[in-house]
C-alpha cells in the first residue's frame, strides 16, 4: 500500500478544523428545493397535456373493457433487444457466448453493429470478429445502442470524433463548446452527439452539422430525445428541446435512460426493512418512482447498468466488502414498471483470474 500517500491524506485531513454544518440553512434550502420539485413535476405534466392536447389520455393505461381502441403508445418501443452483457479483462460475455478481444477492456459501448472498447487511451472497434484501433481518448465516449455511431473527445486535439461502425469512417465534429480536460461525449442518440464541454453542454447532428445549445448542465444520458442531466440544483429529466417540461428528481447517482426515454434508472436510498440502497426507476414525464426488487442487503452497493429493451433494466449488486462476505457480485434483470427482478449473471468473481480485475457492464452505470 502506498503508505506515504495514506499518511499524508490522514495527516492533512486531521490537521484542519471545520465548522459545524449550518442546519438552519440546510432545512431552509432543502424545503425550498422540495417545494420546487413538486411544483416542477406538476408543471411538467400540465405542460405535457398542453403539448399533446387530447392526446393526454394516451399517457394513461389502456382501458380494460370500455370498448375503445387502445390509444397509440406515446413512447414507441424501440427495436433494441440485447442480451445481458458483461466484460472481464479481455473477455466479453454476451448471454451464453464469450468473445475474447485483443486489449484489456476498461470501458465498452455497444452499437447495432458491434462494440467499441477503451483499453488505456486507445479506442478499439469490434465488428464481426475483426477489431482495429479507431482513435484515442482520455475523456468519456458514448455509443448509440440503437444505431451505429460512437463518439469521443480527443482532448489533446480539442475536438470530438465520430465513428460509423457500419463503414468504419471517422469524422471530426465541430462543436460549440470547449473540449478541454473536463469535456466528454455523454450520449449518442438518433444521429446526434451530446457533449458536455468545459463551458456548457451542446448537441451536434452528425449528418447535417446543426448544433444546439443545452446551457449550463452536465449531461448524464440522452435517449430518444429525452435527457438526464445535472443542473444547478440536482438531477433533471425531460425533453432535450423543452427545458420547461423537465422534472427534478432525488437521485444523486448517475443513472441510465431506457431506449425510449420513458424511464430513468439510478441508485437511490429507500425506506425498507432493513433500509438499504436500491435502484429506483423514475418516470421521466412525471417524476414518479418505483423501486426494483433486487436482492441486496444493507450497505451493499447497487447500480443500474443498462437496458436490454424498453422495459427491462439490468442491475449490478456488489456486496459490501465482497471479499469478507463471501457473496459474489451479481447482475439482475428487472422488469419495469413491475419491479420484478431475476438473477442473470452471478459469481463473476469466481471466473479464473478475475478477482483482481475490472468488470464492466456495458450500457450505462458501470459501462
Amino acid at each position: 500500500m502506498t503508505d506515504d500517500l495514506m499518511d499524508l491524506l490522514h495527516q492533512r485531513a486531521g490537521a484542519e478544523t471545520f465548522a459545524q454544518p449550518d442546519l438552519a440553512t440546510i432545512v431552509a434550502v432543502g424545503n425550498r428545493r422540495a417545494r420546487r420539485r413538486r411544483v416542477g413535476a406538476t408543471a411538467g405534466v400540465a405542460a405535457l397535456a398542453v403539448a399533446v392536447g387530447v392526446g393526454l389520455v394516451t399517457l394513461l393505461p389502456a382501458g380494460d373493457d370500455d370498448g375503445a381502441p387502445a390509444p397509440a403508445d406515446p413512447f414507441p418501443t424501440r427495436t433494441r433487444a440485447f442480451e445481458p452483457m458483461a466484460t472481464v479483462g479481455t473477455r466479453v460475455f454476451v448471454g451464453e457466448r464469450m468473445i475474447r478481444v485483443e486489449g484489456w477492456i476498461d470501458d465498452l459501448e455497444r452499437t447495432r453493429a458491434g462494440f467499441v472498447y477503451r483499453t488505456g487511451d486507445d479506442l478499439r472497434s469490434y465488428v464481426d470478429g475483426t477489431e482495429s484501433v479507431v482513435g484515442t481518448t482520455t475523456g468519456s465516449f458514448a455509443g448509440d445502442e440503437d444505431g451505429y455511431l460512437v463518439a469521443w473527445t480527443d482532448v489533446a486535439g480539442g475536438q470530438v470524433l465520430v465513428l460509423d461502425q457500419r463503414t468504419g469512417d471517422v469524422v471530426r465534429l465541430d462543436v460549440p463548446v470547449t473540449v478541454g480536460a473536463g469535456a466528454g461525449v455523454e450520449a449518442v442518440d438518433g444521429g446526434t452527439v451530446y457533449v458536455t464541454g468545459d463551458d456548457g453542454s451542446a448537441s451536434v447532428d452528425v449528418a447535417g452539422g446543426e448544433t444546439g445549445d443545452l446551457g449550463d448542465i452536465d449531461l448524464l444520458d440522452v435517449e430518444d430525445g429525452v435527457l438526464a442531466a445535472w443542473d444547478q440544483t440536482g438531477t433533471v429529466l425531460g425533453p432535450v428541446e423543452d427545458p420547461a417540461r423537465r422534472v427534478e428528481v432525488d437521485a444523486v447517482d448517475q443513472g441510465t435512460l431506457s431506449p425510449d426515454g420513458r424511464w430513468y434508472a439510478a441508485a437511490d436510498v429507500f425506506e425498507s426493512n432493513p433500509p438499504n440502497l436500491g435502484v429506483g426507476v423514475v418516470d421521466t414525464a412525471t417524476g414518479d418512482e418505483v423501486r426494483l426488487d433486487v436482492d441486496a442487503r444493507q450497505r451493499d452497493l447497487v447500480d443500474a447498468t443498462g437496458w436490454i429493451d424498453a422495459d427491462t433494466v439490468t442491475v449490478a449488486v456488489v456486496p459490501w466488502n465482497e471479499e469478507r462476505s463471501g457473496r459474489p457480485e451479481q447482475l439482475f434483470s428487472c422488469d419495469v414498471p413491475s419491479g420484478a427482478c431475476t438473477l442473470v449473471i452471478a459469481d463473476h468473481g469466481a471466473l479464473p483470474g478475475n478477482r483482481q480485475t475490472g468488470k464492466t457492464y456495458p450500457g450505462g452505470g458501470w459501462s
Partner: protein
Amino acid sequence: MAARSGSLHRAAYLMVGDVGLAQDLVQEALTKTYVAWPRLRDPHNAEAYTRKAITTTAISWFRRKGWNNERATERLPEGSTGDHAARVDQQQVLWTALQELPVRQRTAIVLRYYEDLTEAQTAAAMDCAVGTVKSQVSAGIAKLRDRLADRVGDDAARSFDLQTQAVTR
C-alpha cells in the same frame, strides 16, 4: 449526521483542497440528503447517500465551474537540510501535486487511499467503470511520482513509497 460531519468534511477537504470549499461541499451534500430524508431512516444509508453526493457534486463542481486544478496552493519549499525537514518538504510537494491532479484522479485516490474503498465501491461512488477507477488511480499515482521527481529529485521521489501494484483490490 451532524455527528459524522467531521468525517465527511475531511474527505471533502481532500477532494477539493480548501477548507471553505469543503464546507460548502458538505453543506450541499447534506442539503441533498435532507431533501431525500422522507425515505431515509437508517443512519448508514443516510451517510452513504451523503458520501456519494459529496463525490458526484465535487466532480460536477469542478467540471461546471471550469476549475483547472491550478488553484493557489501553499508556497513550495525552497529546500531544507536534515531528514525530518526534507520529509516535511516532500510531503508539502506531494500535497501540492495531489491538488493539481484532475478532479477524477484526485477523487479516486482519496476514495481508495483515505476512505479505503475497494475498486468496485469506488466505481460505484464515482459512477464509473471499475476499469476507469484503475486507470484514474494509476494515472494519478504516476503523475504524483513524476511531479515529486521534478521538484525534489529522482532519489527523493524513489524514497517515497508510491507503489501502484499494491492498490488493486
